[in-house]
């Protein structure tokens, strides 16, 4: 197989990797915030449920979670869902990353001094206004380095979709390497992951810089 053919075959895998990455972020960044807020709910059963969820997600391998989401509907519920592979991957990633983001958000929210809430309350801001206008913007700045870390991990974690034989770049690299007895697919995959993460670093650094105007 020629290099250019290899590259173009693998580029389809890059797109699939990109899709997992983008959809996971799109789902888990907001879901993580909801989880972080529910963790502080006044309704105790909900609070406990959230803690158990975070604990289970962080305490078991993502690879296992992928298998559970994919095979669970059949083994647990007897359901045969057509075309479930890709949705299962996205659900597994979103549910997994939301737990981690929730803990990052929580750390950020808890680091905002009580005085900020009090100043806002005395000025008459509603609870929603206080959160959206005063607390959240400060939280975002504080958590940026941790979020960057998590996003970079996600780029590499997409390779775990390999477990469900989804033809993202890692699966393709392994396949093509075996069939062509070539080392080159691994090099291509490695370079791809590195460039993707380099782009993540640049973008996140820009975002961090845009919030440098205050301390």
């Amino acid at each position: 197989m020629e290099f250019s053919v290899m590259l173009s075959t693998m580029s389809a895998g890059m797109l699939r990797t990109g899709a997992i990455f983008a959809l996971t972020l799109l789902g888990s960044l907001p879901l993580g915030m909801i989880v972080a807020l529910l963790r502080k709910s006044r309704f105790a059963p909900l609070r406990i449920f959230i803690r158990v969820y975070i604990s289970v997600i962080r305490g078991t391998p993502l690879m296992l979670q992928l298998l559970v989401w994919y095979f669970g509907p059949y083994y647990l519920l007897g359901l045969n869902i057509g075309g479930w592979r890709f949705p299962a991957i996205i659900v597994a990633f979103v549910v997994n990353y939301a737990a981690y983001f929730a803990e990052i958000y929580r750390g950020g929210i808890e680091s905002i001094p009580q005085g900020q809430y009090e100043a806002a309350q005395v000025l008459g801001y509603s609870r929603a206004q206080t959160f959206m206008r005063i607390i959240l913007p400060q939280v975002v700045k504080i958590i940026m380095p941790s979020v960057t870390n998590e996003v970079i991990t996600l780029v590499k974690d997409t390779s775990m979709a390999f477990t469900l034989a989804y033809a993202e770049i890692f699966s393709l690299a392994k396949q093509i390497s075996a069939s062509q007895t070539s080392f080159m697919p691994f090099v291509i995959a490695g370079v791809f992951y590195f460039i993707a993460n380099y782009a993540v670093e640049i973008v996140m650094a820009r975002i961090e810089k845009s919030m440098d105007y205050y301390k």
Partner: protein
Amino acid sequence: MILEMKKIRKKFGGLEVLQDISFDIDSGEVVSIIGPSGSGKSTLLRCATFLETIDGGDIIYMGDKAAWTDEQTGGAVYANAQKLKKFRGYCGLVFQQFNLFPHYSIMKNITDAPMKVQGMGREEAEANAVELLRKMGIEDKADGYPYQLSGGQQQRVAIARALAMKLEILFFDEPTSALDPELTGEVLKVIKQLADENMTMVVVTHEMSFAKAVSDRVIFMDGGVIVEQGTPKDVLENPSEERTRQFLSVFER
């Protein structure tokens, strides 16, 4: 009467922080509250500004009840959310730690609440803010951010931010305690200026000479009760209670 507090009770756990505290604040009056730490001064301000809920007693703003004692349970009941919002609009609080919003420019710190809470237009809010900053002597800082200002300047911004809400009464919770000694003067000067303009104010302070110079009335608190109150001359120079004398003697040294 701007504010009437009647038989206010407040407990933290088993500790009675406020025990049957009663006092009135008249329009244009400047009242200083002094007393040792842990005497309940700050808690009293926090109850008056609705940051803490009382366990019993009446809070009456402009003749209108914000909180009262329930006859049956003996506990406190608060007015509905809509009314409380109105009462919150009457009062402002300046904190010991300033609590400016670090991500907002000085201008936005002052204009955001009038615009987002009271629905004031940007032009009016900004014109007000410029006027207030001029009064505070920091009109050149409008575009800066809190971290670029000294403590004394930050506290003056905090005062401007509170005043922008067109208050009936402004509370100060040890406004100079977090400041270096050379910066307290500029903040006290601003408060004095407000007193001269007949702003109704309640100031928790450890600055005795300031309390003497500015206030119409001084309240001495200890152990969750008002030990004595009266004119600055009476309370600070001729205290009738032994506990007041003890407390004041610390400052004479």
